[in-house]
């Protein structure tokens, strides 16, 4: 619901909001430009009488003096029957330049206010402000939900490029956009008279004015009593009319000034509605508040970016949406698939399962988890595929599932299987799937399989789950789901360095060159390689960036590993098909903070790549575990080179098949003091290797961090602990 209330207005009003934002951003520069070109005076430095006296020396025919909110002083005068206007230096009264509003600014202003459409255009701008307000509020609510509450609002963001940028930029611009939208809405409401605009009736024209000789303007007492910074406008009396008076408008109120006595007549102070209007007007336009106008303009500039990424995100969600054929009704299906999805990507997996079950003769019903009815009369099994949203919360299509399940209960002993889909970068990986698993157990269901998880839409893990499921069901279940295969590039193997043959862990460092130009990538990104005979790509962490001129990976041969065997068997000069999957989360953060690199086995690949690119010589500490230094010390010569040229600060290797066997976890515990010092200096931890090793590393580091009252979970939440595990 919340999501729709964000995307629907976004889609409807994207163009309108972009137009308002871009024009607003252009206008926001004006107050700063104006401020650059005028002379500022301190309060108490100059009064209006002094200014009028100086102006009179240069402009005998002065009719009106104006001071804009940004401090420009404009003199309107009449010379030989022709009207003129000039900006003047308030300190001398001398002309600075002829005054004219720029045609471009006027054009943009009119575009911003009414799109040259008169009253309907004014209305459209107001509606645009309303949309902006709705989008800001619903966007903030969504962001808070995604990050697990308001107190986490400043936490690092994860997700695809569009997701991250949409949220990151939105978070930066939120306050500015709220301010602009609210103030714009207020101004629009005053234009249409929905809210009083605080305009007051003019002060009554004085009934009596002095008849004596007129005094020089500089000596008029009411003008001397008014600070220049408070002046809005001074209108001179008609020349030669002794009964006329000056009109004086100031920041505080309006009145008339007797040209003979210098007294302030019929003064009327501004009321609070008037002051409110002026204040909001200033907040919206930045007039006189150039330091506010510029950041507001920057915030507005974020709107086009958010509109474009927002539409992209919506389109992707829509494309991934449910499109299930042969969907049996809930009451007649023998197999029920329930889907918990935030952005629809889980539906692709559900569809694959649905089709596979349908093909093997089942009556399958697929629905969102929120559509749970409890009354599945013919159901013999229930599959629940669910993502997790934010800090362990239910995704959109499952928000009511647990409540509904608690209400309806479950057919006793109904077999079920839960598959969690998520991203291990999140601290609460597949947390909601765990909750669902527990709830189903508690409701009396009997698990077909334990809870399984799929990390980052891994086709391999999903296929593995299907295989296990097939065994339980006593039938072959081949689940091939490849979420959007990108365009592949042809690569040629140019170099191979072999390690680990003697310790039963044959590992190759493989270097490829592109047949044309290499696609862009950085160390830590993933390369997807599709082995002949399987549609499912396997992913390897990249040990080089495209700037290095080669694509380098580190691959250990696994028994029965289709792709690793294929790669190990490649001849120099052979060609493969591959594509890049960016992995921007797994990368050293920019800045001079120390980096702790932890890996085992082939996990060293991307870590070696990071060290190679450490041209700024930031402190980098590598903890790495292998088997035997004489056989599988991967990258040994390179690492020694990096140590000597200080790209690597310290190398702490551990070997498990030597006399004093030691694992990388032991090294971490042994170095606890050093590690604590590094963490206190703001160090970032990057871990690459097998899941087992990653678990051990978390345990060891929790032990190391305990005296600091820190844990890996807190580091993860701060974005300082990142994993690439497989």
């Amino acid at each position, binding site marked *: 619901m919340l999501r729709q209330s964000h995307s629907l207005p976004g889609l409807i009003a994207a163009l309108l909001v972009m137009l308002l934002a871009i024009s607003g951003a252009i206008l926001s520069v004006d107050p700063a430009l104006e401020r650059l070109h005028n002379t500022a005076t301190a309060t108490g430095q100059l009064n209006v009488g002094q200014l009028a006296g100086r102006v009179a020396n240069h402009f005998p025919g002065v*009719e009106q003096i104006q001071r804009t909110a940004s401090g420009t002083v404009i003199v309107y005068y009449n010379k030989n029957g022709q*009207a003129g*206007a000039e900006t003047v230096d308030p300190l001398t009264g001398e002309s600075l330049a002829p005054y004219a*509003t720029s*045609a471009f600014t006027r054009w943009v202003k009119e575009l911003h206010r009414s799109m040259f459409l008169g009253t309907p255009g004014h209305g459209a701008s107001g509606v645009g402000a309303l949309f902006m307000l709705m989008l800001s509020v619903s966007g903030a609510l969504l962001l808070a939900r995604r990050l697990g509450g308001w107190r986490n609002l400043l936490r690092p963001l994860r997700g695809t490029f569009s997701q991250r940028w949409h949220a990151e930029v939105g978070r930066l611009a939120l306050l500015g956009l709220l301010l602009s939208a609210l103030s714009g809405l207020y101004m629009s409401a005053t234009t249409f008279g929905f809210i009083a605009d605080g305009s007051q009736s003019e002060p009554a024209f004085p009934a009596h004015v002095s008849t004596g000789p007129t005094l020089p303007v500089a000596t008029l007492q009411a003008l001397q009593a008014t600070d220049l910074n408070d002046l809005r406008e001074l*209108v001179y009396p008609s020349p030669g009319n002794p009964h006329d008076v000056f009109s004086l408008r100031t920041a505080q109120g309006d009145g008339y000034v007797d040209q003979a006595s210098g007294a302030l007549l019929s003064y009327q102070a501004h009321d609070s509605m008037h002051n409110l209007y002026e204040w909001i007007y200033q907040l919206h336009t930045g007039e006189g508040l150039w330091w506010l106008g510029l950041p507001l303009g920057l915030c507005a500039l974020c709107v086009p970016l958010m509109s474009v990424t927002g539409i992209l995100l919506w389109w992707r969600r829509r494309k991934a949406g449910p499109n299930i054929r042969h969907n049996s009704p809930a009451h007649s299906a023998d197999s029920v698939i329930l889907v918990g999805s935030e952005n629809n990507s889980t539906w692709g997996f559900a569809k694959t399962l649905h089709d596979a079950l349908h093909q093997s003769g089942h009556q399958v019903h697929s629905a969102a988890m929120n559509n749970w009815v409890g009354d599945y009369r013919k159901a013999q099994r229930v599959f629940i595929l669910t993502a997790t949203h934010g800090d362990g919360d239910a995704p959109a299509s499952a928000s009511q599932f647990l409540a509904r399940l608690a209400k309806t209960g479950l057919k006793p002993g109904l077999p079920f299987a839960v598959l969690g889909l998520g991203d291990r970068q999140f601290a609460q990986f597949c947390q909601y799937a765990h909750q669902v698993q527990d709830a189903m157990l508690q409701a009396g269901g009997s698990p077909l399989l334990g809870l399984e998880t799929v990390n980052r839409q891994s086709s391999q893990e999903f296929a593995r789950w299907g295989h296990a499921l097939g065994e339980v069901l006593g039938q072959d279940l081949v689940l091939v789901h490849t979420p959007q295969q990108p365009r592949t590039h042809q690569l040629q193997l140019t170099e191979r360095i072999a390690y680990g043959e003697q310790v039963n862990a044959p590992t190759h460092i493989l270097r490829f060159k592109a047949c044309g130009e290499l696609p862009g990538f950085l160390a830590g990104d993933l390369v997807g390689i599709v082995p002949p005979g399987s549609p499912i790509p396997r992913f390897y962490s990249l040990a080089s960036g495209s700037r290095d001129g080669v694509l380098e990976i580190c691959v250990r041969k696994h028994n029965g590993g289709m792709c690793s065997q294929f790669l190990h068997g490649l001849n120099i000069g052979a060609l493969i098909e591959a594509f890049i999957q960016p992995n921007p989360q797994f990368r050293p953060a920019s800045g001079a903070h120390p980096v702790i690199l932890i890996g085992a086995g082939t996990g060293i690949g991307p870590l070696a790549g990071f060290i190679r690119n450490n041209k700024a010589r930031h402190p980098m500490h590598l903890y790495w575990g292998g088997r035997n230094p004489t056989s599988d010390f991967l990258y040994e010569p390179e690492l020694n080179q990096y140590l000597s040229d200080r790209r690597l600060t310290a190398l702490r290797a551990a070997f498990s098949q030597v006399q004093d066997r030691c694992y990388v976890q032991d090294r971490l515990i042994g170095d606890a003091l050093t590690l604590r010092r590094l963490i206190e200096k703001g160090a970032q931890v990057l871990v690459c290797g097998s899941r087992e090793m990653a678990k051990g590393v978390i345990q060891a580091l929790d032990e190391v961090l305990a005296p600091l009252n820190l844990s890996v979970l807190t580091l993860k939440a701060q974005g300082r602990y990142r994993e690439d595990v497989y």
Partner: protein
Amino acid sequence: MKKIIATTCLAGAIALPGLAQAREVTLTTQLKDYSGNDAYLAIYVTDANGQYQKTLWVAGKKAKYYKHLSDWARGSGMNPSEFDGVSGASVGSGRTLKVSVELADTLIDAGYQIRIDSAVEDKRDARADVSAPLTSKGAGQPATGSTYVESFTYDL
């Protein structure tokens, strides 16, 4: 009761000749090509001393900007009854405003003037942009404006 009705009829009879002595005047105001938004104009009659007498036409619909037509605003007190039925849209740069209004014969050739105050957003206000004597001889003679008005003509 009868007496009251009779008095009312009598008052009407006296007033009627006054109405009969009014005539239709066509006011043609041609604006200059200035760069700016549409102009607000107040066309009104003053005595020889510039004292406000009567509003002929107000161009511009938002009353909150009327204070920029300052002499007229002072004279009329911006009282809506002063311009009731004689107001219309603001006038764009280079455009011509042509309106017909009722004018009492007693104001012609009696030392009165027609004046125009004008104002444009973010630009100067112009008091007495035009000031032309209201005479039978002056009818059809274009008067020149000082600020936004290029020329002003009244046809009796």
